[in-house]
């Protein structure tokens, strides 16, 4: 019943639109499809980037929320759009997870990745009044008593679900996996002590961690978390696994080189903007700009492979 967001901002923004086009691209308003409701992490990122990108591209960007199906509806709309660079989206690992679950009609190669903007770490946290004070203690418990520790994540077939499964396989434990209706639902359950542990992106855990009701145990990123320097990374604990979520810009596959170049320049400018960096840091993530090209494509392919493989097993 929730998530009814308007595209009406389109109308207003369209009226106010004023931009001078210098090159062949862009010459008109660009629609940025957000496959989630307003107020979520992706939406906030879009609205943070919007002014800087508009300045760099010289065109109005219209943020259009198309929530539903855990992102599937919005991503489908973009995958089926004309690859002219005037329809873009902000994807993340969900694209791969939904493909693997078989619910989506798109595949990850239906998108051209125009640049990575930020990355944020998956973090495992436990309720503060539980008996676990470290990741090792939690793992020992889960291995000694398989299927007793309840382990929450955002939604079935979503990125945190797949990441939790990858983690369980890698480390070798069995927990009672509890899918929720979105990340704030999972945080509420853990804060109320109804589930023992949960895996989410750091930003989604922020309110729970700062209230002291949840404690972070391990981060799945390459480096330690800036805000929680005492929390080890999984690789420090001897597991060769590094999983991060990312958010970037993607367009339907087949856009011109000109479009890619325009976005690369615009994203580079936007991500070096101090205001943007601060706003992203406020969300608990960090700017991680990556230009379009082979490196980015290789990274996407690697993430896609591991997410799709695990998600297929979950079906």
């Amino acid at each position: 019943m929730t998530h009814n967001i308007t595209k009406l901002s389109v109308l207003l923004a369209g009226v106010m639109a004023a931009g001078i086009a210098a090159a062949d691209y862009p010459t008109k308003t660009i629609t940025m499809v957000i496959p989630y409701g307003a107020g979520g992490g992706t939406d906030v990122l879009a609205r943070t980037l919007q002014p800087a990108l508009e300045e760099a591209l010289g065109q109005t960007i219209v943020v259009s929320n198309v929530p539903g199906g855990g992102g599937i509806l919005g991503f489908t709309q973009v995958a089926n759009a004309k690859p002219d660079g005037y329809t873009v989206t902000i994807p993340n690992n969900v694209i791969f997870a939904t493909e693997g679950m078989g619910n989506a009609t798109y595949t990850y190669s239906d998108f051209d990745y125009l640049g990575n903007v930020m990355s944020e770490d998956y973090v495992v946290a436990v309720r503060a009044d539980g008996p676990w004070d470290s990741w090792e203690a939690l793992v020992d418990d889960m291995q000694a008593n398989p299927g007793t520790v309840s382990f929450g994540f955002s939604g079935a077939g979503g990125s945190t679900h797949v990441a939790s499964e990858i983690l369980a396989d890698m480390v070798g434990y069995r927990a009672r996996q509890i899918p929720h209706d979105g990340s704030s639902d999972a945080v509420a359950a853990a804060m109320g002590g109804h589930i023992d542990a949960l895996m989410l992106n750091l930003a989604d855990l922020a309110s729970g961690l700062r209230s002291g009701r949840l404690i972070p145990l391990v981060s799945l990123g390459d480096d330690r978390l800036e805000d929680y320097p005492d929390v080890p990374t999984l690789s420090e604990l001897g597991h060769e696994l590094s999983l991060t979520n990312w958010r970037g810009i993607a367009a339907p596959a087949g856009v011109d080189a000109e479009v890619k170049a325009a976005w690369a320049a615009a994203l580079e400018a936007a991500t070096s903007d101090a205001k943007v960096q601060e706003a992203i840091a406020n969300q608990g993530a960090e700017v991680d700009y990556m230009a379009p090209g082979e490196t980015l494509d290789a990274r996407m392919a690697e993430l896609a492979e591991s997410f799709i493989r695990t998600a297929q097993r979950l079906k």
Partner: protein
Amino acid sequence: MFAHFAEAATLFANGYIFLAIAAGTVLGLIFGSLPGLTATMGIALLLPLTFGMEPVTGMGMLLGVYCGAISGGSIPAALLNIPGTPSSVATTLDAFPMARNGEPGRALGLCIVASMIGGMISVLIFAFMSPLIAEAALRFSAIEYATLGLFGLTIIASVSDKSLIKGIVAGLIGVLISLIGIDSLTGVVRLTAGIPALVGGVDFMAALIGLFALSQIITDTTTSRADQASEGRVRVNNAYPRFRETFRRWKIWSSSSLIGSLVGAIPGAGGSIASFLAYDQAKRISRTPEQFGKGHDEGVIACESANNGMTGGALIPMMTLGIPGDASAAILMGGLLIHGLQPGPMLFDEQANIAYGIIIAFLVANVFMFSFQSVGIKLFVRVLQIPRTYLLPFIMVMCILGAYGITGSLTSAWVLLIFGIFGYFLNRHGFSAAPVVLGMILGYMVESNFRRGMTMHDGDWSIFFTRPISLTFVLLSVLAIALPLYRQWRNRRKQDEYANQ
């Protein structure tokens, strides 16, 4: 705490902040009163404007939209039987019959005062009881959500006006509709008939507008032209805020506002559940329950004080826990995050000025909401003076625009049309739309939380009876079903005895 309020009040020395809140409230009233535009949309639309403002000014403007929209939703609900927002669905049950009986001014007058009371009580609860209520809200696990939803479904009995069986049928149809889409527990796509656009479920707003607005338009255009002449003349001199009439129903507004605030504070429950629960409760404590559904003032007061009571409640988990209570609160939270403010208990310590300033801004928004509506009431009623031949096409266009605007795809417009026709036939065959809406709101909530609860507790059923909150809801549900049956049985026996004598 009062020192905090006094300090935060200094932020309001600047007149600009009042202007922002007033502008937000006016926009909210417009959004609320136009079917298809909701509080959530209004807030999302204004969100980018707040980036450049001071946090309290920006939040004040958004809160103005929130209050205005929830309250404004009652205007079309009362006058046209078209709920302007999901939380004013229950308002149509009594406010519209009252307006039909020739008292549209009175219906709106009651709505306005009841909204104000609900809003003010929720401000007080938000200001002084937040930590307590947030703590209680955290006790709700999947088990409690499932049983709360179950209790909510028993309300079908009190909102199915003529036949209980038809009410149950309509409710179950609603439940089935709510299950369309991806199942959040397994990720499996259910009941979509292979239509990709339904993967995300049936768009609730579009369905709601269809069920109420479009079906009403079809009904109105197909009914005889004879009553059109009488519609043209509407008395506007009885349109004024009804203070005395509202205040004397103190049992109704106090309990409904409280229900609204408490239900609003449970994340994910929302305003429409709050107003239905309050309506049901009012009917139970009323001395004249048989008048409900026919234009009873108690029904109007209950719904409107509950849905505005919900606004303050929904802010509680958002501000004190960082968990938004509904979609609107989620965007408000996004607004805070953009200013680098992390909602949660720390906000009240580290950024006391802002946290308490937001509470004051919320109070101001409620005052504006009431003032604007009191001034505007005579204008609103005049809507009914517009000839239907002009009014109905306009509403129809607004509905389709609104539905399209929700997702920006024509799918929602189709959903609107299909539900409009469905709603028309429901009405024609003596089913009411309210149970369908209840089923749509509660069906998925009960189903997914029941299964999640069972997963969490290894399929142990006894958990529903060993947790106090859950047990309370189970007992309330049993009572809600058993009492009317018992009463019916007793009445029948009395009649039999009477007949025998």
